[in-house]
C-alpha cells in the first residue's frame, strides 16, 4: 500500500484526509525506514480491528432485524385470520381458532409495572446505601455480592420458591383481606418479579452514585447540608438519568420473564378482575402452548404473540430513552 510521509504525517490514499494518523516523532531512536515499516503494520492491524468491530456490530443489528422479520413472516397467517381484532380480542380459544391477546397484554403490563413499583424502593435503598453510606468494607461487599447473586439465580428456582413459600403466604393474606384465597395470581407474580429485578436498578444506581464528583458533595457539606440533604439535592438530581436507565433495564427484564411467572400466575385466559386474581402473560402463554400447537393458525397466533411482546418491549424502551434524554437535558 502506498503511503507518503509529509511533515511527520503519514497519509494513505485509502484513508480520507480527515483521518490522518500522526506518527510518533522519535527520529533519534528509530530510523525512518524502520518506523515506516512498523507504522504500516500498525495501520493494517488497526484497520482489520476496525473492520471486525464494524462487522460484529452490524451483525447484532442484522440479527435483531432478522428476528423481527421472522416473527412478522411467520405470523402472517394469524394476522390475515384475526386482523387487528387480535390486539383487543378478549377470548383465546385454540379449539375454535379465536385468538385475542388482550388478557395476556394486560397481564404482562400489570405484572411488570406492579413489580417495578414494588422493587423501586428496594433498589434505590440498596443503591444509595452502597453508593453513599458504605462504598467499601466487608459489609458493603457482602451486600453487593448478595444483590448481584439475586440476578444470577435461575428463574425456575424463583418459581419453585414462589410456589412452595410465597403462594401459601399470599393465600393466607388474601383470606384475611377478603378476596378469593387462591394464592396464585398477578400479585404473587409481581412479588417474585420484584425480587428478581432489584439487582439491575440497584447495581446501575450504585455505580452512578459513586461517580458523583466529590467536590459537589463537599461543597454542599461545607454549606452546612446534612447527609440526607446532600443525597436529596445533590446525589439524586445528579444521577437521575442513570437511575432511570436502571429502572428501564429492570422493566425490560420483568416484561420478558417467563418461567417464574408461569409457575405462580395461575395461567388462565380470563381477564383478571383485580390484582389478586389469576391471569397470564404473553411470555408464559408462548412457553406453555408452543409445544402442542397442533394446527398452523394456532402456531402462527402464538408467533404473533411473540411479535406483540417484541413490539411492546421496543416501544417501552423507546419511551424510556426519550425520558432519559429529557432528564439529562435539564
Amino acid at each position, binding site marked *: 500500500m502506498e503511503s507518503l510521509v509529509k511533515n511527520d504525517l503519514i497519509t494513505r490514499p485509502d484513508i480520507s484526509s480527515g483521518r490522518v494518523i500522526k506518527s510518533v516523532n522519535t527520529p533519534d531512536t528509530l530510523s525512518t525506514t524502520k518506523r515506516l515499516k512498523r507504522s504500516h503494520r500498525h495501520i*493494517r*492491524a488497526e484497520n*482489520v*480491528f476496525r*473492520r*471486525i468491530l464494524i*462487522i*460484529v456490530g452490524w*451483525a447484532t443489528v*442484522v*440479527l435483531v432485524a*432478522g428476528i423481527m*422479520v*421472522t416473527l412478522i*413472516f*411467520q405470523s402472517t397467517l394469524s394476522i390475515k385470520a384475526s386482523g387487528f381484532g387480535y390486539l383487543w380480542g378478549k*377470548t*383465546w*380459544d*385454540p*379449539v*375454535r381458532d*379465536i385468538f385475542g391477546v388482550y388478557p395476556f397484554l394486560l397481564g404482562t403490563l400489570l405484572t411488570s409495572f406492579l413489580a417495578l413499583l414494588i422493587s423501586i424502593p428496594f433498589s434505590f435503598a440498596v443503591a444509595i446505601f452502597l453508593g453513599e453510606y458504605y462504598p467499601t468494607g466487608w459489609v458493603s461487599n457482602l451486600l453487593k455480592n448478595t444483590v448481584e447473586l439475586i440476578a444470577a439465580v435461575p428463574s425456575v428456582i424463583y418459581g419453585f420458591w414462589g*410456589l412452595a413459600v410465597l*403462594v*401459601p403466604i399470599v*393465600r393466607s393474606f388474601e383470606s384475611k383481606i377478603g378476596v*378469593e384465597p*387462591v*394464592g*396464585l395470581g398477578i400479585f404473587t407474580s409481581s412479588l417474585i418479579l420484584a425480587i428478581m429485578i432489584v439487582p439491575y436498578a440497584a447495581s446501575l444506581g450504585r455505580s452512578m452514585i459513586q461517580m458523583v464528583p466529590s467536590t459537589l458533595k463537599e461543597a454542599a457539606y461545607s454549606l452546612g447540608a446534612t447527609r440526607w440533604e446532600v443525597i436529596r439535592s445533590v446525589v439524586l438530581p445528579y444521577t437521575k438519568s442513570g437511575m432511570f436507565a436502571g429502572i428501564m433495564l429492570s422493566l425490560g427484564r420483568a416484561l420478558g420473564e417467563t418461567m417464574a411467572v*408461569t*409457575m405462580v400466575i*395461575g*395461567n*388462565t*385466559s380470563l381477564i383478571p378482575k383485580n390484582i389478586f386474581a*389469576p391471569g*397470564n402473560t404473553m411470555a*408464559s402463554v408462548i*412457553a*406453555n*402452548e*408452543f*409445544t*402442542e*400447537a*397442533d*394446527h*398452523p393458525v394456532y402456531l402462527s397466533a402464538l408467533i404473533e404473540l411473540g411479535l406483540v411482546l417484541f413490539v411492546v418491549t421496543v416501544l417501552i424502551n423507546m419511551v424510556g430513552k426519550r425520558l432519559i434524554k429529557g432528564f439529562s437535558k435539564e
Partner: protein
Amino acid sequence: MKALKSLALAGLAIAITGGMMLTSCGGGGTASKSDSTANKAGGEDNTILGAGATFPNPLYSKMFSEYNKTTGLKVNYQSIGSGGGIQQLTSKTVDFGASDAPLNGKQDSALSAPAVHIPITAGAVVISYNIPDLKDTLKLTPDVLAKIFLGEIKKWNDPKIAAVNKGVKLPSTDILVAHRSDGSGTSNIFTTYLSKVSKDWETKVGKGSSVNWPVGLGGKGNEGVAGSVKQTPGAIGYVELAYAIQNNMAFAKMQNKAGNFITPSIASITAAANITIPADAKVSLTNTEAADGYPISGLTWILVYKEQKYGDRSAGRAANMLKMIQWMIHDGQQYCAPLNYAPLSANAVAIGDAQLKTITYDGKPVLQ
C-alpha cells in the same frame, strides 16, 4: 496474519448467522430442511430417531434401553410433546413420531404420505381432589364432572355431588378447579371425554390439547396441577394416573358408560381398551363401552410412514425400526405395569400387528 484470521472467523460467523436467519425466515423451507436431515437419518442404520409425546417417555426410555441390551439398536427419543412429534414426522426429520392423540384431519393432510398408527400402551387421567376430613373415596358422574369444570357447580356440598355420594358429609368450601396450562395429551384425553359426555362442554369449550377453560387455575405440567390441588383445600384437578399413584394423591371413582363406578387402575385401563378397535387403530378409549373399563383412558401411539422408502432410507433401517416396534407391543409390554402404564389388551396388540404388516419398503412388506 492473526488479525486476518480473526477477520475471516468473524466473516464466517456472520455468514452462518445469516444463513440461519434465511432458513428460519423461509417458513416454507421445510422441504430443504427435511432433505438434509433425511440424509442424516439414512446414514446410520443402528440409530433410530423418534420424537413426540411426553406422557409415555418413562416407559419408552425403559423399553429402548432394554431393547438396546439385546439387539444393540439405539433409539434417540426426544419427548417434545405430541404436536412437536407430529411436526417432525411431517418434515421427515425423525423415523417415527409418537402421539397421545390420533392424527386429526389437518395433520393428516399435512403429511406427504399416509402414516400408520400403532398403539403402544394405555394410560388414564384421574380426577384428584383435596377435601380435608373426607374419609371415603369421592364418586363422580360424567354430568357432575362436566358441571364442575364448566363452573356451574361451585361448592362441594352441592346437592348434585351429594346425590352421587350418599351418606358422605361434604364441606361447604368453594371448589377450585385446576387444569393444565401447557398444551398436553393429558388435557386432550380429558377434554375429549368431557366433550363426549356433555353437550354443554362440547359447544362451549370443545376438545384439544389446549382449550379456553371457563374456570380455574392453570398449572404447568402434572406437577403444576398436583401442586395446586395439594396446597389448596377444596381443589379438584386432573393428572395422569402414574403421577397420582407415585405421589399418593387421592383420586375419584368415575362412573362409566355402563353405569359402574370405576377406580382407575392398570387393570381397569386395560379393560377400557377391550372394545372393538377399528383397523386403523385410531380410536379414543374415552367413555368406553367396556363395563369394567375406566372411562377417561386413552391409548398412545407410535406413528410411522406406511411406505418406508423415502429420502435415502435403507431397507435395513426400516426393518430394524419395525422389528423394534413389534417387540414393544409384545415382549416390551412387561415393562408397562411396573411403571404404572397399562399393558395393551389382546385385541389392541392384534390390531397393532396387523398394522405393522401393512408397512412396505418400495412396495414390498417389510415384516413377514
